[in-house]
């Protein structure tokens, strides 16, 4: 009797371990940037291309940074949630457009020079936003994905919550659904705004 108890116990333990392990999302990689200052950048603004913005300009505000692209299918899925959010909330939501042209895979980059890429990226991004609605306070253009690397972006969409001191407080990888927004992001923003 005692013997079976051990065998069944060990087996149950193994099953539990595997059940928990297999239900984890392997793409949910904890970001080492949480708790660290948001990496600096200086990027052009989509609506006013002659102007640039850096995270320092957002100091004193709790804000969201949402990484997106017009070729990103999951971004389309989360977009209505963001549009709704922007209507109901005055929390600044900044878009980081990630590799609009070169990330698409539709273009032969050897045939596009930097100016052409830039022009095409701005045009495609604005068109997409006018088509699907623009929830962003403003959108920053990361043409070559360099800023994406600094933020540890590995799959769009990704969203960062950044506090008043410019520290990253949360990172969400993958599309935001209403539940994530209501249960994780909004409470955190409210808390940080206190």
């Amino acid at each position, binding site marked *: 009797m005692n013997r079976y108890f051990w065998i069944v116990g060990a087996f149950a333990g193994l099953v539990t371990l595997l059940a928990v392990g297999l239900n984890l999302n*392997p793409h949910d*990689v904890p970001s*080492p940037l949480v708790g*660290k200052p948001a990496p600096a950048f200086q990027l052009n603004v989509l609506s006013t291309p002659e102007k640039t913005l850096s995270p320092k300009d957002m100091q004193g505000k709790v804000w969201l940074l949402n990484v997106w692209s017009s070729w990103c299918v999951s971004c389309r899925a989360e977009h209505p949630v963001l549009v709704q959010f922007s209507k109901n909330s005055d929390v600044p939501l900044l878009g980081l457009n990630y590799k609009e042209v070169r990330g698409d895979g539709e273009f032969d980059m050897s045939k596009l020079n930097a100016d052409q890429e830039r022009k095409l990226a701005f045009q495609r991004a604005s068109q997409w936003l006018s088509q699907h609605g623009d929830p962003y306070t403003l959108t920053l253009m990361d043409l070559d*994905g360099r800023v994406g*690397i600094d933020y*540890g972006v590995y799959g769009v969409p990704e969203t960062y919550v950044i506090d008043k001191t410019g520290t990253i407080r949360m990172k969400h990888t993958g599309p935001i659904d209403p539940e994530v927004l209501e249960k994780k992001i909004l409470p955190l923003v409210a808390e940080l705004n206190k």
Partner: protein
Amino acid sequence: MIARALCLAFALFAGSLVHAGEAAPLADDPVAEKRLQELSTELRCLVCQNQTIADSNAELAQDLRREIRGMIQAGQSDKQIIDFMVTRYGDFVLYRPPVKGITLLLWGGPAALLLLGIFALLRYLRQRATRLAEELPLSTEDAQQAEKLLKEISQK
């Protein structure tokens, strides 16, 4: 059969073509290219997680290879390059994560399980031996026969 062989040959050929399409190496600097190779086999591609940055053709892996190449050209050390990756993507980016509190189970787990298994086996075997000896003691007849057989063996 021939069709299969052809298929295989074609697959191998296509495979080598894909490799040929890799980002252009620093042909003029084989040492740097070798370092890039070594570094990128230590780093995990976060998109296709069971591949290294060296193996993966994902966009991000290409970007990161380009980044590493730039850092090598800028004269940065291997440690600086690895640290650059870890500050952005965490320990997960390392194919061999460092031994520390949170990874202790990962490194020590297999050894601990092996020891546990050996311990359980030894315990089981010992219990079994005593149990058999208690449950099935030899009859005097059997004991005599066993002694006889043992003697025969030792005489040979």
